[in-house]
């Protein structure tokens, strides 16, 4: 019996426990004169029984599985011939890996000797004993749980309170998962970054002007030492984000103003969802568009005007990215403009303002904090965007502010550093984590500011 089978059986027992508990509560209530004497509704007695059946059994089950492999490994090693046991810890680990692979029927690094083969048999034997015993233990505990619940169910039992407390714990666990995941991500990135900063000083990374992370495999190769100055990469991100924002902020804001202040209901009903569809297009499709349509157009136009435009340019990527984030700006701005109270508009019109005066002097100032929040969110979206830039802006880290040249961004560099087979201790690979860390900090700060500003804005009109 594998652990999966045990688990399925446990679930079935739970279902049985639920029914049994419910029946039991009816039965005990009947003696005292009907279900109204019960403290809680019958389903709670059923649920409580199911919980008693499942929770202790699951705890035992998972802790058993957690320690199983360690204990079995230990037992197997102690049975190995002495010359293997005397190997260094690393080599012993490799041997154990071979044994486990043999057990699981995977490919083994070399033909197994008789000692290894017998160890594998031993391992398998121990494993099946362990699985069988955990199955018996778990099922006995589950049944015991049901029986105990049967014994305790009586009308006074506050089943609802117990069940709801368990549900609350479950909710707490779920709500903290996101938090702990974030912490985990930060810690792992931080850990690798610190390793990187041991090789490349923080100062050199943050302020270095040259980025060429190619490390030679042999020391006599040309360009054997990489340069890890992140300025060109961040400059590229900055340049493309600025281009994207200078497209999306005016267009998005004006479309929001049109939609909320001028457009009639029918136009609005059509245009707003259409605009939001823009946000649903996968970024890789925008990437095609940027690389195949926009970049050539820009190059041809540039040539026509006698400019030197590279075929992959910051301008192409920035423009398309700007189009991509228009819906963020416009839909958030539209929301905040609509949230400006009608009484303010009335007040302005009542003083004889024209519509555009009302918008410029009353509505936009009132909505400004919310709009700023929306723009900051759009900016952090632009900074984190990868796909369009990979396809349209190129990979070479030029330190330039000329939008017609090829640039690269932080996210693109992270991708290129980590694509393919990597050794996870070379500074080239580790550099990706350092970039990720800085990027994370920057977008985090932007988001915090944006949320703060938006919250402030909400308070003003509540």
């Amino acid at each position, binding site marked *: 019996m594998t652990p999966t089978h045990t688990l399925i059986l446990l679930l079935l027992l739970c279902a049985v426990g639920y029914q049994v508990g419910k029946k039991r509560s009816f039965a005990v209530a009947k003696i005292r004169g009907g279900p109204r004497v019960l403290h809680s509704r019958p389903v709670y007695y059923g649920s409580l029984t199911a919980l008693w059946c499942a929770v202790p059994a699951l705890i035992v089950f998972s802790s058993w599985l957690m320690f199983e492999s360690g204990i079995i490994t230990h037992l197997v090693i102690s049975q190995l011939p002495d010359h293997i046991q005397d190997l260094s810890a690393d080599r012993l680990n490799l041997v154990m890996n071979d044994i486990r692979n043999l057990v699981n029927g995977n490919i083994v690094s070399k033909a197994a000797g008789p000692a290894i083969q017998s160890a594998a048999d031993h391992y398998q034997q121990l494993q099946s004993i362990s699985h069988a015993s955990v199955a018996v233990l778990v099922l006995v505990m589950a049944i015991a749980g049901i029986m105990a619940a049967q014994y305790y169910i009586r009308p006074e039992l506050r089943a609802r309170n117990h069940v709801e407390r368990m549900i609350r714990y479950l909710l707490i666990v779920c709500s903290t998962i996101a938090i702990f995941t974030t912490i985990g991500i930060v810690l792992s990135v931080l850990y690798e970054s610190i390793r990187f900063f041991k090789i490349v000083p923080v100062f050199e990374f943050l302020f270095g002007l040259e980025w060429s992370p190619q490390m030679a495999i042999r020391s006599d190769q040309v360009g054997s030492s990489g340069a890890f100055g992140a300025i060109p990469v961040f400059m590229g991100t900055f340049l493309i984000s600025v281009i994207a924002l200078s497209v999306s902020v005016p267009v998005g804001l004006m479309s929001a103003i049109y939609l909320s202040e001028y457009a*009639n*209901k029918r136009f609005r009903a059509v245009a707003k969802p259409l605009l939001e569809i823009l946000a649903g297009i996968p970024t890789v499709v925008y990437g095609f568009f940027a690389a195949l349509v926009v970049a050539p157009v820009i190059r041809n136009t540039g040539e026509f005007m006698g400019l030197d435009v590279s075929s992959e340019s910051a301008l192409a990527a920035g423009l398309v990215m700007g189009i991509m984030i228009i819906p963020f700006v416009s839909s958030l701005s539209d929301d905040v403009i609509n949230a400006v*109270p009608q*009484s*303010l*508009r*009335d*007040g*302005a*019109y*009542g*003083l*004889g*303002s*024209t519509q555009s*005066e009302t918008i410029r*002097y*009353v509505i936009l*100032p*009132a909505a400004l904090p919310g709009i700023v929040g929306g723009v900051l969110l759009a900016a952090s979206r632009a900074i984190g965007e990868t796909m369009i830039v990979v396809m349209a802006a190129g990979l070479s880290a030029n330190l330039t502010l000329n939008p017609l040249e090829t640039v690269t961004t932080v996210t693109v560099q992270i991708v290129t550093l980590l694509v393919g087979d990597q050794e996870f201790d070379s500074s080239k690979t580790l550099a990706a984590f350092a970039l990720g860390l800085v990027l994370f900090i920057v977008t985090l700060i932007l988001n915090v500011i944006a949320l703060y500003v938006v919250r402030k804005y909400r308070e*003003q009109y509540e």
Partner: protein
Amino acid sequence: MQTEKNASVSRTSVDAASGNPAVAGKHRKPHLVDRENRATVGEINVPNPKMQCRDVSVFYDYGEKEAIRKVSLDIGQNEVIAMIGPSGCGKSTFIRCLNRMNDTIDGCVVKGRITLDEINIYDKSIDVVPLRAQVGMVFQKPNPFPKSIYDNIAYGPKIHGLVQNKSETDDLVESSLKRAGLWNEVKDRLDQPGTSLSGGQQQRLCIARTIAVDPEVILMDEPCSALDPIATAIIEDLIDELRQEYSIAIVTHSMQQASRVSQRTAFFHLGDLIEVGPTEQIFLNPLHQLTHDYITGRFG
């Protein structure tokens, strides 16, 4: 409510003279005009009118819904005229016609003739922007702009080009706040946001803002309904003072307020102007049965 309203539409055709005692209610006093009579009683004309409304009807939702029907009424020079009536009877709709605020509502249609100094304000040649400076409006809920106290006042004069430089603006801000009786309370904090004031102060700020653009008529739509009694009393005194310089039309749901501040009162009911007259007469000797019922609290 809706059925009652529909019923009343058909009743409008009933002639004033055909008041039939058989269908009248039990509270009917013999000398009063019958409830069924929807034509306006009382004197709608004044000797020297500032504004004149003739047969004004307003429809919402592109003509689907009639909100007021054939209202004719004069607004005199330097008088306060109060509009009273149960909610939904069209008081706000009526005064919003006087500065064409209803133009900002999609689907609102205004028919009839409204003149300001004998010029038809609904004429094609009339621009609403200067009109609304001439006929200012104060709203039910104080609605200061999200700007400083100073800028709240200075905004109107600036857009209308009434001030040329900083010192003129300063003077106008000061005199407007003084006339609204707010100057002493705010003179040390003109740069604070208008929203930081109390409700009553905000409403006086809105009045100051309105008079800063030098209007001739001021419309007030329940200006005190969001305020406490003390702030209300201050505003009522202010209205009485402002009467020296402006014509004022005020909507109120408080009959005490109408009797305290106004010289004439107009009673609306379900979209019809039922009765107009000197305030004292409306409250002491109404001519119409409905007016009588309303001021004695039989409905409303």
